[in-house]
């Protein structure tokens, strides 16, 4: 490895009145890039599986989660949303005993 810097020298410009918004654009674009990398990998996974004689794509399209799996997925989504709105909730929402219990159980 060498010591090649990853960012140009100097200050980054601010386009918005609130510098937080400039940061947010960077964050969202990085996330979008990562999301694309994952989407491409899933696409490749199906394509490579097909090459190996495994019709993963068709099987996934035909797949129906069981009741148990549906509950697990719903729980995963809820936890993801909780993580997403973690700081908003911590700072701006009155403590909800029910939610607080769930969060502790995690």
């Amino acid at each position: 490895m060498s010591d090649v810097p990853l960012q140009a020298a100097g200050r980054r410009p601010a386009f918005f009145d609130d510098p937080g918004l400039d940061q947010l654009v960077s964050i969202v674009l990085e996330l979008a890039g990562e999301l694309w990398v994952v989407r491409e990998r899933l696409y490749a996974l199906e394509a490579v599986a097909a090459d190996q004689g495994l019709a993963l794509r068709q099987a996934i399209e035909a797949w129906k989660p069981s009741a148990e799996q549906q509950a697990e997925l719903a729980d995963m989504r809820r936890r993801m949303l909780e993580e997403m709105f973690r700081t908003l909730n911590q700072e701006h929402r009155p403590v909800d005993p029910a939610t607080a219990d769930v969060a502790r159980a995690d």
Partner: protein
Amino acid sequence: MPVELSHDLMVAFPRDTLARQDFVSSLRGYILNDMAAGMKARYEAQVRPAFERREGRPPRTQDEVHAAMRRDLYFRYYSAVRYNAQEMVWRSVIPSVASALPELEHKLETLDGRAGGSLTLDPDLEIPENVAGIDVHLMPGGYAPSDAPTAGAVYDNGLAVFSAGLMGANLDDIGLSMSNYVKHRFPEFRPARILDCGSTVGHNATAWAMTYPQAEVHAIDVSAALVRYGHGRAESLGVPVHFHQMDATALDFPDNSFDVVFSSMFLHELSVKDIRKFFAEARRVLRPGGLLLNMELPPNQALDPYDQFYLDWDCYYNKEPFYRAFRDQDPQALIEAGGFRPEDYVQLTTPQFSYMPEAAYAEAVNAPPAIGQDTGRLSSAVHWFGFGAWKAAEPTAA
């Protein structure tokens, strides 16, 4: 989509990195085509009418357009996204390039001598401040951080992502378009020696060598990193080019030694003072009857205030400090200041050679130059702008 480089110096990127590059490339394509169109529409529909209501007239200068647009949310998003995309271009190639450095050095050794080109370094050359002092194009580390070929590899691989498939198979469309313009427009002109100044990795010098295979092609750049990498790149492509670490404002070539002096996207990296020096040097090394030709962005005087503002975005936000000062010049006046005669001035616009049949291109070069909103502006409708001059065949009578 990024161009997949087809020479031996190309870095083997992991699959996830290639996917990231695809994303950045598509993002840039979206910014330069779709968002650019959206921003222009927003200007026409809202920003300009608001300015006219306030001032009782349309904006007269790009500064007025810029000031009005700075307050516009669409411009802010366009700019923030474009700035980040530029950073992401470099970030998508640098870690892999850095890992590949030892291998790159080894490849440079093995490629030396394959095509018959050469490499001449000048360790005493002082790197000018416009290269040493700033990370132009936001390229981290700049173009001449060391003699290691890193900057060449970062630039070559980064440009492949940056250009979003709009700059030809080997990133050589500018060189191919300009050299084929000369070939088809001036068929009797048969250059024997061609010089590409500020050549970076020689992606346009190889194009000139392919268009004029009988010619001896030289390429100069102040950065050892770039000419070292460029030499390996050209050798790998099987195209002989003679690379020199040299400053275009002080050419180490004899008088009357070239038939073509070429530059591409180079003048806007120089101060106006250095452009004048370079033109005087170009005239000195050109043989009588030789041609100075510069591919560049079109001058501001040929564009309306919005398009001036649009192109000069790079000057304000992409670390291109001399970009606007150059574009504010009258190209012909610059040429004449270099000692060329007004009647020998040449100006042209050309479609992209890489994306049309050669016969159609041969026809297109006879069309009169036309500067518009897609001139020199990287988009799917781009056509290139060039200007320069013939060196008078006979010395003018004193």
